[in-house]
C-alpha cells in the first residue's frame, strides 16, 4: 500500500485493541489499546522491562496476544496463517536492538538477503539497490565488510538498510540508539527522520532515550508495567500532568515508578 492511498494522519495503519500477553503467569502486556496512523513516527517509551519490546514483537507477529486484537490495515494478525503472515512481513522492516545481522554474511549480502529471497531481480539490479540503500544510511564502500569489522553504530545503520531493502510501508526500530554515544545517537535519530520523510515510511520506535523521543516522534505512547500510561504528541507529553510521565521524562529516581520497591525488592531484602 502506498502513502498516496493512506494520507498522513487520516487512517489507522495498526490498531491495538485491548491487547494482553502473559509470560509464565505474569501479565507483561495488560489491556493495551492505541492506533498508529499512516506516515507517522510513533514512539513507544518506558522503563526497561516495562513491556515495550514485547509490544513491538506482538506488532511484528513474532508472538501472538493472549487477549485482544492487533489489526494491520484492518486485518487481525493473530488469526493469520503462517503464509499470510509471511506476506505481511514482506511489507515491513525491522531494525533490531543489537542489529541482528547475520555474522557469516558481508554487509552487502546482509542487505541483499530479503531482495534475493523475495524478488526475482537480477543480481546486477540487486547490486544497484544495495548501493542505493547503503548510500541512504551513509555506508557506501563498506559492502565487503563483515559485521564484526564495523562499529556498533555502523551495524545499526546496516540493520536499517536491510530493514528498508524491500521498500516497506512500516519500519519497526527496537532501541535504535541504545549503547551509542550521544553524537552517533543523534546521527541515528536524524537517519530515522530522514528515512521516514524520504521513503514515506510509518516508523514505530521503541526507546527510553528522551533525546530520541522528542527528536523524532509525531506521537508518543508511554508504557509502564505492561499498561498504557498515556498517548500524546511530544509537546503534550512534555507538559503532561501524569506523574508517571513526568518522572520518566525527567529521570527522577523517586516517584510513582518505584523500581526498587516494586520490581527488584532489594530494599525489602535489606530490611530498608
Amino acid at each position, binding site marked *: 500500500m502506498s502513502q498516496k492511498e493512506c494520507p498522513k494522519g487520516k487512517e489507522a495503519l495498526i490498531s491495538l485493541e485491548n491487547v494482553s500477553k502473559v509470560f509464565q503467569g505474569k501479565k507483561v502486556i495488560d489491556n493495551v489499546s492505541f492506533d498508529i496512523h499512516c506516515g507517522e513516527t510513533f514512539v513507544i517509551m518506558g522503563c526497561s522491562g516495562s513491556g515495550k519490546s514485547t509490544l513491538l514483537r506482538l506488532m*511484528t507477529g*513474532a508472538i501472538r496476544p493472549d487477549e485482544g486484537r492487533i489489526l494491520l490495515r484492518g486485518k487481525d494478525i493473530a488469526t493469520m496463517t503462517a503464509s499470510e*503472515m*509471511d*506476506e505481511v*512481513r*514482506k511489507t515491513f522492516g*525491522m531494525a*533490531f*536492538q*543489537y542489529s*541482528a*545481522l*547475520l*555474522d557469516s554474511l558481508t554487509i552487502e549480502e546482509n542487505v541483499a*538477503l*530479503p531482495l534475493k*529471497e*523475495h524478488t526475482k531481480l537480477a543480481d546486477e539490479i540487486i547490486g544497484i539497490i544495495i548501493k542505493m540503500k547503503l548510500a541512504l544510511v551513509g555506508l557506501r564502500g563498506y559492502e565487503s565488510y563483515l559485521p564484526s569489522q564495523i562499529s556498533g553504530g555502523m551495524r545499526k545503520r546496516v540493520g536499517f538498510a*536491510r530493514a528498508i531493502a524491500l521498500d516497506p510501508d512500516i519500519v519497526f526500530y527496537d532501541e535504535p540508539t541504545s549503547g551509542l554515544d550521544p553524537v552517533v545517537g543523534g546521527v541515528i535519530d536524524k537517519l530515522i527522520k530522514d528515512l521516514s520523510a524520504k521513503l514515506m515510511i510509518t516508523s514505530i520506535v521503541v526507546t527510553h532515550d528522551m533525546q530520541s523521543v522528542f527528536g523524532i516522534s509525531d506521537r508518543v505512547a508511554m508504557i509502564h508495567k505492561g499498561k498504557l500510561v498515556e498517548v500524546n504528541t511530544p509537546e503534550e507529553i512534555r507538559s503532561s500532568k501524569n506523574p508517571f510521565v513526568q518522572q520518566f521524562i525527567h529521570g527522577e529516581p523517586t516517584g510513582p515508578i518505584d523500581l526498587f520497591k516494586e520490581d527488584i525488592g532489594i530494599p525489602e531484602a535489606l530490611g530498608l
Partner: protein
Amino acid sequence: MVEVVGRYVIDYYRWVKGIFSLLYGILYWIILGPFKGKVVGRVSVFSQMVFMGVRSIVIVFFVDIFTGIVLAMQTAYQLEKMGAVIYVASIVAVSACRELAPVLTALVVAGRVGSSIAAELGTMKVTEQIEALETMAINPVRFLAVPRFSALFFMLPALTILGNLSAILGGYIVGTNNLGISPDLYMQTTFKYLKLKDVYTGLFKSFIFAMIIALVGCYEGLNAKGGAEGVGRVTTRSVVISFILIILADCIITAFFYFSKV
C-alpha cells in the same frame, strides 16, 4: 517424585516431537521447496560440505587408520595361537566396513560438526539473528537447517568410505610389516571375504548417523536460550545426545541386519 518424573517425561516427549517436527520441516523444504520457487542455495550447501566433509578428512583418516592398526594387532594376538594369522586381513576389513569405520567416523563428526552446528545456530538464536530471519519472512529451517542436513547427509557416508579405506590401510601396514603376510595375499584375503553388503550396511548406518547429528545439532541450536551459557549448554547437549543416539541406532541397525540375515 511423581512430579519430577512427570516433568522428565513431558520434556522428553516435547524433545522427540520437536526433532520429528524439524525432520518434517527439512524434508518438506527439500521436496516441496523447488515447487514453491525456494530452491536450497547450492553455494551454502557446498560451503557446508567443504566445512563438514573436506575439513574432517585428516581427523577421520587418523582415527580410522590407527583403529585399523590396533584391530590388526589385537586380532593377530589371538589368531597367531591358532595359526590363522592370515585372517587378520578379512577381520579388519569386515569389522571396519560393517561397524568400526561408520561408528567412529560418526562419533568424530558428531564431536566436530554437530557441536559446531549447535553453537553456530545457538549463537544466532540468542543474538536475535533467527528472529531477524523470521521477521524478513525467511524460514530458518529452510535457510539454516536444510543446507546443513543436506551437506552432512552426503558427506558423512563419503567420510565413512574414507574411514573404511583408512582402517584397511592400517591393517595392511601391520599385516605386511609385522605379521609376515605378503601384500598380494593380504589384499586377496581382504577382498575374498569382504562382500559388497558389508560396505553398504555400513554406509546405510552412516546415512542414519548423519541425520541424527544434523537433526540434533540444528534442533538444539535453534532452541538455545539464555545467552552464552545457553549456547554452551546446547553445544554440550548436542554432542552427548548425538553420541547416545548414534550408539543406540547402531545397535538397532546391527540387530536388524543380523536377525534378518542381510
